[in-house]
């Protein structure tokens, strides 16, 4: 079931809330059990068989966690083996559903074999659930999680606000909240939850989804080998970047809001990533919980392992002015590329996702390299952020947007074609109708080589307008975390000591004007739930 559906907003959600508060007034345990069962129902809605797939996996993980906990101190060897088995089991589980077809296709591509590409239906949210279970086993093994019951574990894994699209949560940050949860109605939590949920719904349906109507035909054209031209190439690039930005931002807000209805604060997962001044900062703002997982469970252990090996061999470590190219390559470049390779593969089973991940790995490595070089050529650079923040922002924004083409394009060839469009490799053209309206400016454009084409001028203008408006919102306005900072919208979020005037002016409060304003936003979201879409008018 999707958050942005009638059946969820007007069906399941009210029923779950009434049941939760109703049962909670009698016994807390009943309310939590109700929440677990409701989450299971939420998960089963799309394909009931999903429950049969995910339930054994949950039970096996719980059993492994129990064994790891029992042997962790007394028999560390077997405990470690159990952890490895658990991780392998989860990766195989994910791999079977998500990567079987891709791997068979890759084998066919490389070896010219003819393996059958059977489509395997992916259980919903399997990537998120798998990472969450792996993190749980690792935390149990490390002693960060000690006491847990089946009910606790089931609620942790299945809690529906974060079940399908994250954030990827840790047991140790969720269970204390579940244990302290008040099952009585809390007006503040409800008000904050409503605000987060409907702001997220509007972001998703009013801002992100209409952009798909602009972007999808452009990528379809590129997929058919058609050159888009400079202007449409940039609309496709920026348009998709903004579409996925508001889509993910909206979904994350909805998840935060839904959890808050039950008094639960989920961790920060999305914090205006397009405002980042570096690619490293981008990943501290974009899908924060994934970055946290990858850093903690892949990058750090790998980096540490390699550092120990180098030190044991008497080679130089990493950091500071003495960093060598070899140590940089071994201790930073290699783990970063591997981590981002996994990140790409996690996002989707396809070559384009892998290339996207590797591109980000390369960009992060360059960013780290620049920091090292900067320290040498520009020592004591306290004024550095002030001087280069604008450049860093522009570089990051363009890099992220250009890489997003690979994320969206159906093939590497289509992505490369759009990249060619971005630099005018396929010529610079504008719609004939648009040029006709530009008057004398059209002659100037013609003089510098701009040619007319037969595409629709109104569609191009619509695309540019949408990109402009969404860009202004993404870059110019405060985000939901800032607007609701006084009410801790996500775990650990507090108001900053010094905020720009716009953020101060936009602070949420339970006032009449906010209630009416939020009602308008909510109405826009609800009205956008069920657009009548039968077929597209024939294209001119």
């Amino acid at each position, binding site marked *: 079931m999707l958050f942005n559906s009638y059946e969820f907003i007007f069906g399941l959600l009210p029923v779950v809330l009434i049941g939760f508060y109703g049962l909670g007034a009698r016994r807390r345990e009943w309310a939590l059990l109700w929440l677990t069962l409701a989450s299971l129902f939420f998960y089963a809605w799309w394909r009931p068989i999903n429950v049969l797939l995910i339930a054994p996996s949950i039970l096996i993980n719980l059993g492994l966690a129990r064994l790891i906990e029992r042997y962790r101190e007394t028999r560390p060897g077997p405990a470690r083996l159990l952890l490895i088995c658990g991780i392998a089991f989860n990766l195989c589980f994910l791999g079977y559903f998500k990567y079987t077809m891709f791997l068979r296709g890759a084998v066919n591509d490389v070896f010219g074999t003819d393996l059958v590409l059977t489509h395997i239906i992916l259980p919903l949210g399997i990537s998120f659930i798998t990472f969450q279970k792996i993190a749980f086993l690792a935390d149990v093994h490390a002693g960060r999680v000690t006491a847990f019951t089946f009910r606790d574990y089931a609620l942790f894994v299945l809690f529906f606000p974060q079940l399908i699209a994250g954030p990827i949560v840790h047991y140790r940050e969720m269970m204390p909240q579940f244990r302290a949860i008040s099952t009585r109605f809390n*007006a503040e939590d409800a008000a904050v939850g409503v605000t987060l949920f409907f702001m997220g719904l509007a972001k998703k349906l009013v801002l992100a989804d209409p952009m798909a109507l602009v972007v999808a035909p452009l990528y379809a054209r590129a997929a058919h080998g058609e050159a888009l031209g400079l202007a449409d190439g940039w609309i496709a690039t920026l348009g998709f970047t903004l579409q996925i930005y508001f889509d993910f931002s909206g979904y994350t807000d909805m998840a935060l809001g839904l959890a808050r209805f039950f008094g639960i604060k989920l961790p920060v997962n999305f914090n205006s990533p397009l405002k980042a001044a570096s690619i490293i900062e981008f990943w501290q703002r974009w899908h924060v919980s994934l970055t946290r997982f990858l850093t903690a469970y892949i990058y750090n252990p790998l980096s540490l392992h390699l550092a120990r090996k180098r030190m044991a061999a008497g080679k130089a470590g990493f950091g500071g002015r003495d960093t060598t190219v070899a140590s940089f390559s071994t201790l930073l470049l290699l783990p970063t590329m591997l981590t981002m390779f996994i990140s790409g593969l996690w996002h989707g089973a396809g070559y384009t996702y892998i290339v996207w991940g590797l591109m980000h790995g390369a960009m992060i490595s360059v960013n780290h390299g620049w920091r090292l070089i900067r320290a040498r050529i520009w020592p004591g650079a306290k004024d550095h952020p002030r001087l280069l923040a604008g450049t860093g922002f522009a570089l990051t924004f363009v890099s992220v947007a250009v890489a997003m083409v690979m994320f969206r394009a159906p093939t590497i060839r289509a992505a490369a074609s759009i990249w060619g469009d971005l630099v005018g490799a396929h010529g610079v053209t504008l719609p004939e109708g648009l040029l006709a309206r530009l008057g004398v400016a059209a002659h100037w454009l013609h003089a510098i080589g701009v040619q007319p084409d037969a595409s629709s001028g109104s569609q191009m203008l619509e695309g540019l307008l949408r990109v402009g408006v969404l860009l202004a919102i993404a870059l110019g306005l405060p985000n939901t975390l800032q607007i609701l900072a006084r009410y801790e919208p996500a775990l650990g979020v507090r108001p900053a000591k010094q905020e720009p005037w716009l953020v101060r002016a936009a602070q949420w409060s339970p006032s009449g004007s906010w*209630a009416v304003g939020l*009602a*308008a936003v909510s109405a826009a979201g609800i*009205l956008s739930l069920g*657009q*009548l879409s039968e077929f597209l*008018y024939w294209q001119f």
Partner: protein
Amino acid sequence: MPRFLLLWAAALVAMLALVAGFNAAINPYELFAWQRFPGINEYKPGTRNHVALAKAYQVERARPVTVILGTSRAYLAMDAASPVWPEADRPVYNYGTPGSNMSEVLFRELQQAWATGRLRHAVAILDVPAFLTPDPPLSRGPDEKRLRLLDDGTPNPDRHAQYLSDAFLSVLTMGALVDSVHTVLARHGGDTVLDLRPDGTATAADFIDVARAEGMNALFTQKDQYDLSRVAGFRRVLADWHGPMPNIGILRGMIQFCLQRNISLTLMLGASHADQMEIYRQAGLWPYIEKLKVDLAQLVADAHSDSITAWDFVEYAPYTTETVPPQGDRVTRLRWFWEPVHFQRALGEIMLQRVFLGTPADFGAPLTLATVDARNQFVLDQQRAYSGWRLACEDNRQERCKPPAAIAAEASR
């Protein structure tokens, strides 16, 4: 906080109710049987992307004696209010639906029009490319769920549920709100406003708008490119095709349906501009078009009934060989075509006159087994003359290059 929540909920309900009331009153998709009010909701531009929805309910209210069936060409160019229609055949409803395929628009809509109770005559505007590749299997989407009868002729059990769904989505969606606002704003838009009249006839506002902005050459260029992109697919399909042309079975089913219910059926192979015909000729598809005409004549012969007739307007006549204005010309308008596929209402009117009044006698011809071979030869001769002139014209780069007199006698009729 409780006050905030109450105020939010009250404001939300009030806003949604206001929107629903406004949308229901403006009725942007013609779902409800409200009257139109001049200066408020006289034109219905919101039907642009919801023609199938609007027409499914319009036709029930219209209860036509004659129905026009077809794709966007019928939708745009055939006037249900034309004076040409015989009095006994009125009221006429134009069920032409853009963006659909032959299987959807012809048989389904014939059934739906018949189910309204008094259908006596059906006029189907046929598209040549629709017979060059088979339609995909029909899907059971909302378009079918709105109809009185399912494809197999049984009553549709989902119809009322679909109506409720359409009514809900027509009043409580952002798209409906935007379309309602457009409807109100469009009251002074003149011919640039798309309208779907209660008799199903639409204005060609979109073409007029693009022709003004970009010129008719742009319209022709775009459609030529689209046609060119399809010919390879047609060739591939037809290379291994045996028997009657693709989708002929749909027409055979329609003829049976009409014969059993005493409905007269007129099949009209609609006019194409020479640009499109030349693309097919150069792609080697012309023999298939000739075969299509033979198949149509055979269908008529097999029906053994005067109530089933077929007409052919695919020819190189003065109406179909107008010279396209040069690139950048945003002033010159063609008289008969918007682009190579979509003919204008004026030409639709000529076609109706030819079928129902017999004039002009030199454009279009009935298709029968006795005449079809001569007809094909006649059009082939026209084609040779036109192609020869065009080649010569392009070689000589004449500034004011007009078709030869035999073809290009000004269409002043």
